[in-house]
């Protein structure tokens, strides 16, 4: 049984986090760290199956909870990775933790990217800033199932080179011919040899087959409209463009009401929506 179902079993308490141990911490940038977590209960750990784009509620007792996307690929089992920016109470408390410390997790939650549906197609992934966190999971999942996909294009933009996440991996990937990876920053420095400018400007540099391409977008709220415009200019179908929304969340399970976007709840109806759904969603983009 998967963990999502265990939450729904009679007598289960979906508000009760599972203890999980931090097994590795990597400093990515000044504000972001990558945490590897192992759920302590073996049965739960093994049942923890998820889709890219799903999230967990990270729980630190005494401080609170925060929704965080799973960054590792579903094809990797036994642990999950969270790429977390220190943005306030809970994320700050997590940043203060050390390897071996225990935190809580509830999840996997929400609706992720339609991986099965994307299989057999080309994909175009566009990330801005911290938006790479959920997309990283999808990218690595595609990587592990590479033969099931056509061309894979990844456009990733950040404000400046020091804010590019997972640079160690991406620097290597730039040289692979099975991934078309383009990095860009708003403001370059002398270390930077990739593109400069907005991620939307990269659309001039890519060729896509609109009938056969799935898009996935994640980034700051302001980014969506512009990226979608570019995708639509390339004639991509509205229902093949997927995006993940960040909203305030307390429960993650459709009860607390905080994550409302138009008539939907981001936590259970999303956080991943396709553009057709988003077009029909007030307050979305």
């Amino acid at each position, binding site marked *: 049984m998967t963990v999502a179902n265990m939450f729904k079993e*009679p*007598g289960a*308490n979906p*508000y009760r986090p599972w203890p999980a141990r931090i097994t590795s911490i990597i400093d990515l940038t000044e504000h972001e760290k990558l945490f590897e977590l192992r759920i302590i209960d073996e049965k739960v750990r093994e049942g923890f199956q998820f889709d890219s784009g799903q999230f967990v509620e990270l729980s630190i007792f*005494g401080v609170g909870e925060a929704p965080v996307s799973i960054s590792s690929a579903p094809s990797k089992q036994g642990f999950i990775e969270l790429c977390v920016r220190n*943005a*306030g109470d809970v994320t700050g408390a997590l940043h203060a933790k050390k390897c071996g410390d225990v935190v809580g997790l509830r999840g996997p939650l929400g609706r992720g990217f339609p991986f099965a549906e994307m299989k057999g197609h080309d994909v175009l992934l566009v990330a801005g800033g911290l938006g790479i966190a959920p997309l990283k999971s999808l990218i690595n999942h595609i990587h592990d199932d590479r033969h099931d996909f056509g061309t894979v294009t990844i456009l990733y933009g950040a404000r400046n080179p020091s804010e590019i996440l997972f640079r160690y991996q991406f620097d290597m990937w730039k040289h692979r011919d099975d991934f078309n990876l383009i990095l860009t920053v708003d403001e370059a420095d002398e270390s930077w040899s990739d593109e400069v400018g907005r991620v939307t400007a990269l659309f001039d540099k890519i060729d896509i087959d609109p009938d056969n391409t799935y898009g996935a977008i994640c980034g700051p*709220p302001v980014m969506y409209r512009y990226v979608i415009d570019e995708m639509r200019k390339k004639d991509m179908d509205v229902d093949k463009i997927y995006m993940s929304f960040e909203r305030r969340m307390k429960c993650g399970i459709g009860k607390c009401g905080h994550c409302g976007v138009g008539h939907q709840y981001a936590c259970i109806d999303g956080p991943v929506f396709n553009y057709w759904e988003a077009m029909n969603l007030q307050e979305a983009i």
Partner: protein
Amino acid sequence: MFFRVMESSRLPDLVRGFAQDHEVIGPVAKDDRFVFATIDDPAELRLDYDTTLLPPKKLFFPAEDQLMRFRVADNEVLDDEVFAAPRVLFGVHPCDINALLLMDNIFLKDYVDPYYKARRDATLIVGISCVPSEECFCNAWGTDEAHWGFDIFLTDLGDRYFISVRSVKGAELLDDFVETREITDADTADFQRVTAERKEMFAEDLDTSQLPLLLDAKFDSPVWDALGERCLSCGACSMVCPTCYCFDVRDDLAPDQKTGTRSRLWDSCQFSEFSAVAHGQNFRDSRASRVKYRYYHKQWGYLSKFERVLCVGCGRCARACAANITPREVVSALAKGGFE
């Protein structure tokens, strides 16, 4: 469903009977208003109440509700038990019965909420017929009658009650504690007469035709700006509403900072912080957008999932709003494109 008739004079026996194994909670007077409170003596019951300050939701989903106790050092839950003693909620109006059914959709489906469920399972509901007040508009949503969601329902026929029996437990308790008789044609005729007379008492009907579509089509209506200027962002409307279920979650540490409690507290989409996220972004920054969301969620968001609007027309928000923003006014202003 089967039916019984009970003499009005038997009512105290019924209450006392329930009280043997249950806490009995019912409407009692508080100054010139009413609240649901524990009944020690059947004489305290005020079945003639118009509406209560807070709806019965407070008994299933308290304003401040401890979810769990925890230990900080190893992030461990110490206790998340819910204690729910058997009780009878005596004298609930149809609107509030229907409101609980709407709450059930949220708390008893998908991820079942164990706190709500335990209290719901431990509570019998005795419905009581009512006389519409000026603020009531349950007739607009068809929540003026309750067809399920109760164990027994008493319709006041003057000298006797016409009792609809829904559950086995209700039937048993009724049998155990009071003398009732089978209904006759005369009883049914009186029941129909009383029901028809009540229907006549409602203030003019509210035109809710195509409301969900109007909310979308007129999403940018200036009506919302006008309401936003008036609204005090006080959240009173959400607190008193029997169908508003939003909550915030808060951790509190014991003074020694070693253990603590995680609680949930009623929240309101009318507060600016409700949809604020990190980095200063707020998806509903203006009062107008928040007033609008209250209606958008109730009349369309919830409807899109459960095929019912999230309002039972109890009129509590209308009474509670100092700015006098009422569903009746909002719905008709939206339809007409302005205020009268």
